[in-house]
């Protein structure tokens, strides 16, 4: 009989160990694929960063040539933004949104799978550009024309075309994902989960998706025009034929600045989930945190030209963009103060996710404050395009986004894989990364103020310039070591199988994902409790505790 039933229900090829991942439409598996792929690019982009820092440790052209430096710099920026930060957050959103709102899956599971495979394809196309005729793109991640145009002395060859193609694919991937998130969040929330009872991470993803929908088409349009210029001889951005370079700058930054918030809003959401759980408190001012997310998203679309203060737009426009950029500091400040107030009178459990969350607040504050200098346009004339800006956006994007997603990884790892990451290695990871990060990027503020411009393979001064650059390079080595510790931690937990098995709810969480098993079954929940507050799991625990045994 047994043999017969096997014949009746054969195990299809789709259930194979590898094949099941290739054909999956399960949001959890897609989320994990996103995160795993992004971490792979993170290591690759990090290696590029180490190459650059090694070249800059001392003056001269000793390690990378000037040509390859420009390629490495362009690829590092594009990789970290388009292949690491955005997709890893999409990965978290994929894994978490349906679980947090008590849904079975995303609204469009197949579309979801398509988003992932497009992302992977886009990344491969970008990295294939190393083998393109003329080498990888080398016009920086903004690809300003005319440097990115197809002239023999600017960007001939096909590297830039690969870059454009990859941006097109990645844009499509993100747009499909954004639509999917919006539809899911609007339609599939658990009974009782009103907007004001929605986890703040889900608020953040809703906003993130809307911003992507509005901003990404501008990028697609800009790179399409650039592609036409390069391949069929149009002159959209070639001034000698009536084109306008400033037009490209506007189109690019109309996408580029909301993009910054795309990369940090979901992290705000993660911090708003982690902090309360590890403070054993509710978030301080739920509504303020939720609405400040919307406020940031709205204003993020009105600040783009603060990237163009040195373009010579005139006092009127510069003033408008200075004021709008300063306004955006207000909702951001609200968030920071609310987070700090969340820890007030708490029972702070300083596990690794909490350390990363607190580290995020410390570092992101720094990045926000240095941003005020850059918003004041006459001061920006001094700081723009210098290493000060490099320091500023790394405090936002690494000190902010990356510390946030590492915190998120430690926090949700047990839910994703059913095993805990080691706390001791986690703490080593955090402290090495924290110290290494500050060593790398704090001195870059000073370098910028001393007059070092960005995107140079060398510099012509000794003394402090050399000292700060060397400290920065050593710091980048410490960061690499920290990342190694993280990888060892994963290896230890899963290859050596030493990770402690996690129960459903190892951290005593607040949100619905902790209601199901770790890892959750394919259908997520057998049943979902009626949601009566923003912290359904805590409600449940209290009700259980009140029940007479």
């Amino acid at each position: 009989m047994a043999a017969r039933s096997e014949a009746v229900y054969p195990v299809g090829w789709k259930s194979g160990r590898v094949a099941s991942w290739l054909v999956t439409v399960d949001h959890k598996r897609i989320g994990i694929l996103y995160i795993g792929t992004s971490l792979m690019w993170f290591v690759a982009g990090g290696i590029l960063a180490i190459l650059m820092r090694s070249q800059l440790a001392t003056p001269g052209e000793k390690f990378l040539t000037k040509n390859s430096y420009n390629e490495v710099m362009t690829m590092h920026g594009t990789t970290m933004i388009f292949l690491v930060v955005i997709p890893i957050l999409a990965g978290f959103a994929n894994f978490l949104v349906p679980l947090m709102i008590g849904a079975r899956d995303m609204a469009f599971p197949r579309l979801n799978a398509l988003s992932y495979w497009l992302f992977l394809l886009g990344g491969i196309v970008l990295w294939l550009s190393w083998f393109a005729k003329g080498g990888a793109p080398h016009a920086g991640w903004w690809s300003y024309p005319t440097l990115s145009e197809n002239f023999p002395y600017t960007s001939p060859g096909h590297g830039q075309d690969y870059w454009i193609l990859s941006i097109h694919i990645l844009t499509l991937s993100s747009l499909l994902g954004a639509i999917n998130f919006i539809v899911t969040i609007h339609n599939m929330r658990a009974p009782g989960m009103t907007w004001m009872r929605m986890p703040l991470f889900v608020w953040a993803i809703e906003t993130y998706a809307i911003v992507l929908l509005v901003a990404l088409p501008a990028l697609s349009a800009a790179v399409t025009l650039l592609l036409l210029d390069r391949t069929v001889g149009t002159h959209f951005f070639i001034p000698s034929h009536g084109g306008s370079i400033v037009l490209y700058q506007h189109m690019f930054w109309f996408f580029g600045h909301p993009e910054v918030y795309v990369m940090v809003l979901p992290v705000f959401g993660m911090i708003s989930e982690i902090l309360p759980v590890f403070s054993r408190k509710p978030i301080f001012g739920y509504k303020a945190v939720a609405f400040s997310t919307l406020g940031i998203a709205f204003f993020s679309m009105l600040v783009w030209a603060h990237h163009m203060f040195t373009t010579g737009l005139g006092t009127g426009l510069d003033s408008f963009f200075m004021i709008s950029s300063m306004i955006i500091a207000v909702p951001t400040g609200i968030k920071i103060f609310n987070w700090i107030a969340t820890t007030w009178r708490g029972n702070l459990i300083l596990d690794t996710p909490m350390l990363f969350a607190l580290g995020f607040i410390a570092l992101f504050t720094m990045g926000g404050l240095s941003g005020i200098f850059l918003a004041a346009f006459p001061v920006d004339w001094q700081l723009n395009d210098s290493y000060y800006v490099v320091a500023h956006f790394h405090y936002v994007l690494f000190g902010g986004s990356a510390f946030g997603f590492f915190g998120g990884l430690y926090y949700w790892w047990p839910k994703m894989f059913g095993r805990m990451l080691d706390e001791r290695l986690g703490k080593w990871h955090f402290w090495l990364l924290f110290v290494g990060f500050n060593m790398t990027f704090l001195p870059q503020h000073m370098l910028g103020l001393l007059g070092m411009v960005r995107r140079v393979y060398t510099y012509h001064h000794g003394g402090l310039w050399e000292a700060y650059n060397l400290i920065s390079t050593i710091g980048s080595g410490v960061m690499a070591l920290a990342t190694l510790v993280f990888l060892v931690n994963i290896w230890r937990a899963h290859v050596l199988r030493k990770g402690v098995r996690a129960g459903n709810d190892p951290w005593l969480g607040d949100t619905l994902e902790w209601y199901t098993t770790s890892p959750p079954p394919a259908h997520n929940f057998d049943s979902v409790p009626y949601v009566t507050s923003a912290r359904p799991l805590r409600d449940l625990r209290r009700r259980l505790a009140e029940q007479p045994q």
Partner: protein
Amino acid sequence: MRWKLPSFVLAVLLALATAGVATAANGGFTPVQPESPNASHTQTAYYVILGFTSAIFVIVEGLLVAFIVKYRRRGRSREVEGAQVHGHTRLELIWTVIPVVILCVIGVVVFLELPNIDSAPASTDPIHITVEGHQFYWQFDYVDSPNHARSIGTMHVPVGQVVDLKVVSPDVIHSWWVPALGGKIQAIPGRVNHFWFRANKAGSYEGQCAELCGVFHASMRAVVQAESQQSYQHFVSKYGPETIGKQEWNGVCASCHGNLGQGGYGPSIASNTLLKQVAGLDVILRNGFTGSLGAMPPVGKTWTHGQIASLVAYMRKHIYSASAGATSGG
């Protein structure tokens, strides 16, 4: 016990930071020493913002550290809840309004400083210089000078006189920046931007292109030589073919082809007979050149005929040598 390592690390970092400040007075904590009114006023705005942001920094990071220390677990069970505070409207209003006020103050200070940064003192009689950013050199046209003086790499200006810059580019975007003499302005093809400064004292002020412009971006440096009125007048008046040829070679050709034309990033050209022919060279310099070894930008797109002739004269005398190295065409 678990707090010893973090607090030690923190203490070390703090000590390092303080030591850094102490040993390297202005070691990059403010923009470089300003030597022009626009740079000084920018510095003032910088200090005002620095004051406010430092205060916010200390408050935020201080509260964060204080709360971490004060409300840490101390062996409490994970089940023990903190105070279930859901918010406090008045408090939240306060930390919304205070930043608004601070930002308003910063905004007002910036707008008060702006006229002094943005526009030159009205009563003065400026000299006009056109700055042309090229791949990969700066060219300066002294448009007031009767003989249309030009220089490459080094700009000569008289001390104490307002210099009005017209900033343009014929190829890709560059960005003019000499930190001691004010901020940046992009040189954008198809656009004319303006900038000004007034050097307070004699000296040479270094700067470099701040917008990625290609492979030699890092070597696209500029020097502003502020000197007495007499020296300036002398420089402008002695301008002629014999001076510009040498500057062109050193500031433009040599960066790729080597100081003696022996080759470097670009091919060896010392023995190339083109170096002696004005007409042939003219075509390459104006249009660029794509050969088997790569492409040369049209570095001489805006050069005068006389300029190219004087480059050829210089190269004939100092660079060209029929026997220098093997045949090479470029």
